[in-house]
């Protein structure tokens, strides 16, 4: 190893460093950018607010895991329409605790972006070389059948019976054993999260990684960013420690869709000539349905999210399988008392599948919450988008019954707790749920520092360089001009790689 990594216990006093590029945030986008810049011979410092986790630190208990790996203890939510949303705080960012789905943004969506945001060279063809390079680096491949487990294969069977397209999810996983523990940290070390893939590679290429460092300000002079300032913060408690100052020839922000805008606003409303910083917030709200089968499904075994259907992508939703810590899934089961307990006992015969909607009419914004670096997130769920999600729930119901489920638990307010046949489930089609009837959550988020060809309408250009500063780049999914229709991580990484190569060429 030629670079270095510092953890909280290493800090003895103020930290000062100088480099070619400082990258803020070690999630999928920041890690890719740091690696590509270091591999190109640039002197790179990578800063991460969270600590690095080892398998010893993983918690199988869902509540404790979320409290340790997620911002605000995993209890962050939007106002306007109240919806839980989760962002990780760890070396590797969300990749440590996501399900590793790597989907390429479809060509039609790139075309829509190009038209809406006046983009000229952000097409699927432009990004495919970057997707390919990342796929090769991480070993991204379709989930093999032998680790799907019955709950994923039933989804496949249901889709096939209906004649709907479906496919095994491509994931950044090598040697999956089917533990279904992606959301609490992969004990099998099969998931190629950034902390065990791109970050060590960046260190090998010479990058210096400082963990437990919270960046509080981007320093700038005229049209140039000059570095960042912040503090060492203790893991989990966030207790402030020594100051940190990194001087750099270029600054790359990958702090996340909800943090990057706040950092810019705290830095004198940097890069906000367009007034778009913190605006255009979009989510992929999702909801899940449980289906109970006559025979044991043994859902404890199988890839966390092994199968998906892109059949309805153009209609605005994606269908996929899901597993999570059982205590998290059980929250949505109906009933109380002994009836609730019976539903818990039935989980062994159950599969859970979910849907996410593109929600192109639902917008929000992010602002500072008081003086803190935590965001105040306001978002509205457009009724038409809620209807789209309702159609997705109906589609899931059809797959369940086509796969042989004896009943489904739709989890929609105002409907029966259980629907026992396709005929009964038609109520989902006939009475599409309203936004208020759905229980939704989202981890996919974009748009708050959007890319736009016109500097008056967006924050960054097609290389992810800020319109207002010559050497400030933003490479998290906040640059998406809109929903990518599928899981955003892979497209964020591809854009980050392209931006990093462009920046490396300019230094």
């Amino acid at each position: 190893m030629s670079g270095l990594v510092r953890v909280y216990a290493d800090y003895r006093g103020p930290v000062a460093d100088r480099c070619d590029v400082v990258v803020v945030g070690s999630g999928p986008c920041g890690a890719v950018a740091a690696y590509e810049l270091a591999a190109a011979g640039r002197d790179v410092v990578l800063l991460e607010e969270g600590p690095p986790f080892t398998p010893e630190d993983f918690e199988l208990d869902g509540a404790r895991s979320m409290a340790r790996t997620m911002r605000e203890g995993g209890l962050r939510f939007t106002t306007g329409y109240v919806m839980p949303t989760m962002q990780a705080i760890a070396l590797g960012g969300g990749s440590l605790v996501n399900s590793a789905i790597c989907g390429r943004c479809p060509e039609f969506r790139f075309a829509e972006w190009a038209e809406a945001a006046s983009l000229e060279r952000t097409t699927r063809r432009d990004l495919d070389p970057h997707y390919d390079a990342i796929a090769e680096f991480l070993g991204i491949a379709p989930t093999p059948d032998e680790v799907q487990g019955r709950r994923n294969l039933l989804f496949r069977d249901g889709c096939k019976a209906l004649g709907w397209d479906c496919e095994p999810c491509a994931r950044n996983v090598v040697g999956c054993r089917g533990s279904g523990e992606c959301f609490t940290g992969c004990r099998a070390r099969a998931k190629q999260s950034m902390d065990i893939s791109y970050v060590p590679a960046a260190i090998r290429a010479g990058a210096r990684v400082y963990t437990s460092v919270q960046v509080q300000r981007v320093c700038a002079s005229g049209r140039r960013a000059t570095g960042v300032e912040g503090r060492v913060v203790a893991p989990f408690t966030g207790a402030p420690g020594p100051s940190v100052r990194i001087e750099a020839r270029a600054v790359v922000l990958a702090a996340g869709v909800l943090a990057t805008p706040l950092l810019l606003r705290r830095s004198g409303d940097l890069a906000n000539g367009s007034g778009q910083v913190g605006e255009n917030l979009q989510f992929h709200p999702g909801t899940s349905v449980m289906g109970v089968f006559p025979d044991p499904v043994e859902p404890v075994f199988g890839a966390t999210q092994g199968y998906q259907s892109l059949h309805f992508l153009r209609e605005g939703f994606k269908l996929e399988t899901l597993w999570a810590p059982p205590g998290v899934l059980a929250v949505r089961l109906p009933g109380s008392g002994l009836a609730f307990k019976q539903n818990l006992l039935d989980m062994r015969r159950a599969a859970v599948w979910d849907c996410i909607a593109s929600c192109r009419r639902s917008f929000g914004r992010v602002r500072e919450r008081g003086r803190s670096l935590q965001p105040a997130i306001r978002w509205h769920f457009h009724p038409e988008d809620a209807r789209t999600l309702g159609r997705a729930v109906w589609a899931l119901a059809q797959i369940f019954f086509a796969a042989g489920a004896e009943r489904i638990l739709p989890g929609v307010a105002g409907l029966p707790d259980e629907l026992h046949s396709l005929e009964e489930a038609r109520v989902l089609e006939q009475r599409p749920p309203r936004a208020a009837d759905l229980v939704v959550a989202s981890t996919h988020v974009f748009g708050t520092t959007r890319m736009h060809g016109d500097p008056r309408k967006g924050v960054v250009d097609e290389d992810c360089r800020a319109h207002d500063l010559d050497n400030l780049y933003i490479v998290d999914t906040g640059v998406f001009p809109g929903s990518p229709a599928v899981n955003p991580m892979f497209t964020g990484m591809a854009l980050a790689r392209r931006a990093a190569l462009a920046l490396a060429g300019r230094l």
Partner: protein
Amino acid sequence: MGSRSAPLEARLRRDGLWGAGRRPLCSAAVIPTALALLAASLLVWACARVLAGYGPRDPGLVQLSAREAAFFAAAADAAFPPGGGLPSGSEAGVVAHLDGWLALLPARNRLLIRLLVLFFEHATLLFPAPGRGGRRRFTRLSPAQRGALLEDWGRSRLRLRRIVFASLRTLLTSSYFASPAVLRGVGLAPLAIETPVVEADLLWPPVGRGREAIRWTRADLERPVPRTPLDPHGPLHPAYAGERR
């Protein structure tokens, strides 16, 4: 003095109660006095409702007060009553788990949860439980009333009420499932996995510890570990081992 008080004054004079220097009684003084008495009574009643009648605090708890612990214990046993082939909320150790989990949260979130508890405990004033005494605080309701009340919240037509209920149920359910006995009971206990050592494990120690806590060397990278798919009926994670359903 208004004309309405004149007969009263005459009566007081007749009865010898109208003394020199005494201020006359009048409606303008009675109303504020009555209001003050009412406010004081309400305050006493509210204090008694909010503070009185809880048992002593469990010394093993760090975060939860006696009132909060009593609430969570009552709510956990309403959500997960004894019977039904699974442990009750009390048997699963829901309160102790919640206490430990609260310690991991930022102060703001802890405060929000305390407010949730306070609200739910006394929300029977707005949304009473069925049966006699349905407006008593949650912990004073009968077990049947508690169960019916939770059911009522979960099925409310008001989304805000359902959100409050979902928040409470999230806390209870995730803590209930922290119990190995529960996970074994529902057949969802995690399986044993031998964790391989990867390059990153040589780079940093477990969270919060110094570099001396890195216990792996490059030789450990070569240690062979199984890479085959897990067997759903195979051995359980050691922390969850026990009799399976």
